[in-house]
Structures are given as structure tokens and as C-alpha cells.
């Protein structure tokens, strides 16, 4: 069993003429890799109608509706995160109630507001109430902001996690893309943060650090935008880093099954 906790799908409103082809390709390659469940999000309109990381409320709703369509088209194989923009707190909570009520399994926070901001507290409380995890886009570069997003780092996510010990958080892509060497030392001590192995970052020392710093019960597998890099990291852990089979199973699926309380494999998948 293999569970991808960090996937994305495109939609008719995402501004990509090839969105069907890309979504089909994700599922086709997923089949080849043996992915049992794609847990995925749609970030608004992917920049078409409002910025990817600062989506307008209406566009958040459009994206979530599209995500649920994909989930319903592939029952037991695709599961949705409800994406929210915490700057619109009332709307965010309405979205969470609505889409989790429709069967989505988690909450996705990207980069509209730093993770440590009090505006995220009601969202973290809602996640605990619904018993679902929050996947938070994280990369570390504290020296300056970067265009297009208000990215959080691991320390900021940890501040939120400490305030909400009943809520389970997933730190996206090992903090990679940013300076993961800061992130991993922070999350080592914050036991309600899991780390996903997705993302384009494939640094050798990053992988050795993640298995050294984070207990395997808190590692989950994922792909994000590039499936080959996620798959390569899993293969490296298996064939080069010498991770034991039982630990690999935790990463491949067991931890995610427990986090999301998933029932996978319906409808012939």
C-alpha cells in the first residue's frame, strides 16, 4: 500500500489547457507506482482568477468544489483536502464544515498567512473538532520574503502546533525548497507535526537528516507537483539509506492511514 498525502489536481478553471491530460497522467503514473490513495488539493484557480497562494474566497470555493468532483470520480482512490485562506476566517470555517461534511479528509493551508498568526487558531480548532490533519505548505527562508506567497517556516508551524496539541499537522515537502536544515531540527521536538517527503528537493543530506531527526512514526510519503522526485526519495530510503522494511511501511502508508483514518480501495481501485 502506498499513500500520497500531498497531491494536486488541475481543473477546468485552472487556466491550463492540458489540465485533463495532466490529471490523467497523475493517475496513470500513480497506478504504475502502486499508489493506493492520492490525498490532494486544488489551490483556488491556480492563479487564473486570483493568486495561487492568495486565492479570493469565491475561488477557494471553486477549487474545493472541483476537488470534490475528482474525489467523487475516483472513490476510494482520490481524497480531498479542503483548502482555505485564513484571511477570510468566517469563509474558511464555512468551507471546512461544508467540504468535510461532503467527505473531504483534511485541511490544506498554503501561504496566505504565516502559520504562527492567531488567525489560524480557529482553523486549527476546527481541524481538531473534525479529527482531520492540516497539511501546511512550508519552506524556510527567514532572511526575506519571496514574491507570490507568505511562506511559513517550521518554527512558525511549530508555534501553532504547540498552541493546538490536539491538532495534527503535516509539514509539507520536508520544508524543502527552503532551508530544510532549520526545519528538521524544529520539528524533531514537536510531536504533533508529521513530515511529508514530497517536493522537488532531492538533497542527499536532507534525506539523511530527516530520518535522523524525525521518528519514522511521524514521516509520511507524498509527491506534490513532481511525482518522480517523491518516488526517487522513497527508493533512496529503501535501497541506499537502509531503512528497515517495517519503517518503510510506516512511511509508505501506515502513518497516513492512521492520520486520515482512511478507507481506501473502494469502487474497484
Amino acid at each position, binding site marked *: 500500500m502506498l499513500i500520497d498525502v500531498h497531491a494536486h489536481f488541475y481543473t477546468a478553471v485552472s487556466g491550463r489547457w492540458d489540465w485533463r491530460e495532466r490529471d490523467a497522467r497523475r493517475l496513470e503514473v500513480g497506478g504504475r507506482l502502486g499508489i493506493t490513495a492520492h490525498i490532494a488539493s486544488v489551490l483556488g484557480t491556480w492563479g487564473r482568477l486570483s493568486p495561487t497562494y492568495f486565492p479570493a474566497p469565491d475561488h477557494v470555493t471553486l477549487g474545493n468544489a472541483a476537488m470534490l468532483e475528482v474525489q467523487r470520480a475516483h472513490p476510494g482512490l482520490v481524497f480531498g483536502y479542503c483548502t482555505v485562506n485564513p484571511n477570510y476566517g468566517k469563509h474558511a470555517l464555512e468551507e471546512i464544515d461544508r467540504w468535510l461534511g461532503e467527505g473531504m479528509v483534511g485541511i490544506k493551508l498554503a501561504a496566505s498567512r504565516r502559520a504562527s498568526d492567531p488567525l489560524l487558531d480557529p482553523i486549527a480548532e476546527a481541524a481538531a473538532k473534525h479529527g482531520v490533519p492540516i497539511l501546511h505548505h512550508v*519552506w524556510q527562508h527567514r532572511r526575506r520574503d519571496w514574491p507570490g506567497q507568505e511562506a511559513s517556516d517550521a518554527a512558525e508551524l511549530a508555534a501553532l502546533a504547540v498552541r493546538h496539541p490536539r491538532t495534527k499537522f503535516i509539514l509539507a515537502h520536508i520544508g524543502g*525548497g527552503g532551508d530544510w536544515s532549520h526545519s528538521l531540527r524544529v520539528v524533531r521536538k514537536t510531536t504533533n507535526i508529521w513530515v511529508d517527503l514530497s517536493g*522537488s528537493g532531492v538533497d*542527499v543530506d536532507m534525506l539523511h537528516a530527516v530520518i535522523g531527526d524525525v521518528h519514522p512514526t511521524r514521516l509520511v510519503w507524498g509527491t506534490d507537483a513532481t511525482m518522480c522526485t517523491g518516488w*526517487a526519495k522513497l*527508493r533512496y530510503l529503501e*535501497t*541506499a539509506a537502509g531503512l528497515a522494511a517495517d519503517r518503510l511501511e510506516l512511511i509508505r502508508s501506515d502513518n497516513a492511514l492512521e492520520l486520515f483514518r482512511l478507507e481506501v480501495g473502494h469502487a474497484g481501485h
Partner: protein
Amino acid sequence: MPVTDVGAFLGAYPYRHLGSAASPEWLLAQMDRLGIDVAWVGYLPTILHSDPAPGNRELEKAVAQVRDRLEPVPTINPEQALWQEDVNAAALLRAPAIRLFPQYQGVATAGPESRAVAESCVKAGLAVVLSVRLEDLRQRHPLDRAGELEPHEVRALIRAVDGLRLVVTHADRTFIEEVHFGLTPEEADRVVWDISWLWGPPDDHLQHLVRTVGPERFVFGTGTPLRIPDATVVKLELSDLEPDTLAGIRGGHLGRWLGRRDGGR
């Protein structure tokens, strides 16, 4: 054709702790694990050395006993007064190529110093390896302000130096397109690209470029030990490219491009 990695390194990297991954033993173990026959290896410490010659000698020594697997790619610093001696040493060593790191050496990629080195390499029968980047810009150490190579610099260098053969590593789709379609077909034929920074599925940038730019322009490169070599291997495995194209990227294209029958050795 042997599977040949044009983008490997040995040695310590100033901004990260690579540990045993900096050693030839580690690299050879990864190559064995993944079926990589030969690696062109640069030497990471020399990217910041005003005089790379001592580091080049360390590289030579490190690969001396395994020259059938590890081909040295010495660093030339165009600002070093006696750089010609270093090019001559690379030729004597029968290196397949030399490396320039203009961003780290503080020289213009297509400026007079770099052009002079490139012209010397043409005469010596050496290819030149350039890396667009070594790490994601977003994760750089605060003191690593070297920046990234720009497409116009590669276009300018290839146009300026007749006969120059460039191996460019760590380029993404946009970079490759802006160089390839900004050159004449004859100029573009003198450039090959490693696939280490190209996206695989679901966006499939590698497959797209094979269709638009042509398969012969792409060669196998990993960027290890800064990056896991598995990423390049998996990218090919997950592609829908034809077996001939896959074999070409793994080694055949490089061999033909260099005019050698042994895949670049």
C-alpha cells in the same frame, strides 16, 4: 553504450555537510546500485578556489585507481593568471571536459576571460561543463550570493566561440527552450543538456522537450552528491520515451556528440 553521468561531484561542499557522500567510495556504491557505469566528476571544493590547481590534483588522485568508472572534470578559473597550464593539465589527464563556475568565480560567463578559456578548450579537444545552479536558489546559505546562470549567457558563449562544445547541467525547461530556440541549429548542436533539473510526470517536461528540441540534445546527469542520483534514474523510468531514446539519454547521445564510440570515456 555505458550509462554516463555528466553531472557528478566529489569533495566537500562549503554550505552543507555531505559526510561520507563526498567520497569516491560512496559515489561508486551509488553507481553500482543504480547501474551507472561512468561518472564525469567535478570537485566541489574548487568552486570557490582562486587557484583550483591543487584541488584538481586532489581530484586526479581520488579517481586514479578507478579511471574506468570516474572521469575527472577539472575546474578552470579564468581569472587565474596561469589558467592555460590548468587546461593543458586537463588535456594531459585525458579529461573529457573542464568545468567553469562563472557565478562562483565572479567572471562573466561569456566575457573575455571565459571566452579565452573556452577557445583553449576547443583547441585541446575538451568540452566545457556549466551548471545553471547547484542548489535551489531558495535554500541557499545567506553568504551564497552566486546567483544562477542566465540563458543569454549560454547563447552568447556558444555564439562567440567556434567549435565550443558545452554540457549544461541543472537547467529547467524554460532555460533550455530559451537557449535552444535562440540558437541556429548548428549552434544548438554544440550544446547538450543533462536532465537532472527537468520535471517528470505529471508535467513531463522531459518528454515535451524530447519532442520539441529533439532527443539527441539530452544526456544523463544527476548532480550527486548534492542530489540523490535516484531522481534522474526514476525520471527516465517513469517517462514514456522510446527505448532507443532512453538508451541515448543514458549514454548514446553523449558518445555520438563527442564522436566517441564508448559513451564519452
